[in-house]
């Protein structure tokens, strides 16, 4: 658990996510990247704020829009890039792709490509922590779309019933592909629905890294005192299409919403708070790390035919 917000580290992780995904956009049309990508651009502040509040022993359940969560957890960037390239030094030796990243060392659990599907797994992991009297909190990232699924509420109910140490991080970008939240449910805030299940829930607006950090730190502090679930509804904006690298085809109002979010980009805010030298050093470091990761991916081999049958069964 960390109580002090480290701006330098926040800026570094934020920039590493942003530049990595910009690199994905740059390379995507070369077809070197061999899987669908669901970009986090616009939503990075959540992953960074949450991750900075966590400890090594905490467990991360992410989803198919997982690059930001993965990078913010300081999971292995080289392996992530190799996985995007479908190479044998990737996080799943090329068998997972962008939608199934994992990093065992970092307690970053393999992600699912199906909305809300890993939510009960996160709850089950939290149950196991309590069962084994083991330290740690589970963080479960999901979108607003996940809350349309029945399994989401089944999971929340169980987490609440058994007072499990879990924080549901709802990244509410308001859209499931192109379906706005208003077309999918009545104006009944996710936090209110979660509260009805006995889960303490807070909505955090403004898309600022520090606010997500503070809220997560506070949840962890309370979980350490008494095991219980929390839900943070983190309001955010996705700048790109649901999948792929394209700009969404939006109405004027929706377009303005994204422009507004871009004008309030927390990456810029964080940068303003740092000395120029630090900014230069961090930018250089980020550029080098991404170049190295891409070289790692480029220089890796594709898996051999014999690997097709590996790891179907234990």
């Amino acid at each position, binding site marked *: 658990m960390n109580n002090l917000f480290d701006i330098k580290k926040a800026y570094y992780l934020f920039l590493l996510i942003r530049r990595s995904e910009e690199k994905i956009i740059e390379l995507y049309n070369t077809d070197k990247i061999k899987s669908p990508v669901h970009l986090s651009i616009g939503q990075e502040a959540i992953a960074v704020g949450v991750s900075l509040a966590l400890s090594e022993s905490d467990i991360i359940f992410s989803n198919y829009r997982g690059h930001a969560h993965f990078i913010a957890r300081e999971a292995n960037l080289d392996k992530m890039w190799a996985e995007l390239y479908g190479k044998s030094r990737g996080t799943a030796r090329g068998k997972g792709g962008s939608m199934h990243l994992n990093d065992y060392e970092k307690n970053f659990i393999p992600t699912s490509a*199906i909305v809300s*599907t*890993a939510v009960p797994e996160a709850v*089950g992991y939290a149950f196991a*922590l309590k069962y084994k009297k083991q330290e740690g909190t589970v963080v479960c990232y999901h979108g607003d779309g996940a809350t349309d699924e029945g399994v989401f509420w089944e999971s929340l109910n*169980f987490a609440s019933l058994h007072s499990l140490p879990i924080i549901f991080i709802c990244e509410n970008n308001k859209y499931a592909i192109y379906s706005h939240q208003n077309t999918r449910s009545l104006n009944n805030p996710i936090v209110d629905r979660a509260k009805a299940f006995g889960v303490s829930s807070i909505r955090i607006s403004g898309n600022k890294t520090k606010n997500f950090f503070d809220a997560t730190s506070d949840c962890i502090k309370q979980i350490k005192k008494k095991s219980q679930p929390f839900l943070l509804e983190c309001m955010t904006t996705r700048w790109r299409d649901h999948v792929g690298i394209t700009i969404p085809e939006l109405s004027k109002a929706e377009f303005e919403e994204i422009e507004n979010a871009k004008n309030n980009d927390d990456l810029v805010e964080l940068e303003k708070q740092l000395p120029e030298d630090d900014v230069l050093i961090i930018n250089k470091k980020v550029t080098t790390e991404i170049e190295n990761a891409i070289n790692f991916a480029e220089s890796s081999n594709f898996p051999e035919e014999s690997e097709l049958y590996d790891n179907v069964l234990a």
Partner: protein
Amino acid sequence: MDKILDKKVINYGEAIYEAITQEMARDENIFVYGLGVDDPKGHYGTTKDLHKKYGKLRSFDTPLSEDAMTGIGIGAALAGLRPIYVHQRMDFLLLCMNQIVNMASKIRYISSGEHSVPLVIRAAIGRSWGQGAQHSQALQSFFMHIPGLKVIAPTTPHDVKGGLIASIRDNNPVIFIEHRMLYKNAGYVPSDTYEIKFGKGRVLREGNDITIVGVSHSVEDSLRAADLLKGVGVNAEVIDPISLSPIDNEIIRDSVNKTKKLLVVDNGWMKCGFSAEIIADVATNCESILCQRLGFPETPCPTTPSLEKHFYPNPQNIAKKANEMCGGDSEWNPPEVVQHEIVSFKGPF
């Protein structure tokens, strides 16, 4: 005295209970959960009072949330626990399919072997006494279709105990199929713990004239049919595959190469099912084998006994079909055999 030689006669349900309680005593990471596991009936006695013996954390009732509860078991397994999820009816697994097919079976593959899911899902086929369309289904073929799952459907008390222990100790997700009409079957069961092997079938009756392969309860009816066939001089070899995925194709191929005739008695619908798979393997790997099958008609299971009796294969029509395949008299009508477990069962559940 060698404990493995220390046998006693217990029934199928008691053998399941014994497997669970002995394994729970051995490994505190094992827990049992599911609707009603801690109720006074304890799922046909198979989970009775485990919560009193091992505590409420290790045997607990659940909300009616099969989808999430499956995922919760998978998550707990990822964290190193060994959950056993119990369903009173196999039909309820349809509420769990996303978790079983998309998650449990795939996590090992998409993590290049870094994670595994040691989860056992017990499900009972609920045939007979008015269970009808949604409480009687045998859906083994759904799960046999999916790489990354193991599927086992033991028939005897011996194999159900050894099979369940093997499933609990296995590091893969296992669909463990029980049959309500087998719970009262008695047989010799070693008192100590032991495992039977996945992918290993058993010849229950030796014979040279025809091979009959059953699955779960239809193995029982196939044995009865073999008794009837003796009366007309036909020696049937009856095979219980026990493990459906992986399946012991060798034991079936060896048998049909000897008998040259194969009758598969499915306990499910035949289309794309267990019998289709067995016959496809024989057609692909053996030569000149006469193949036939029996199974459910392409209808949902009716509730009324006057129609239900026409829905399931029975010892007589199994024997009649086998006899015809062996060149016997097609006019032969085998004497009726009482399926005591079915006749004696009077509900309500």
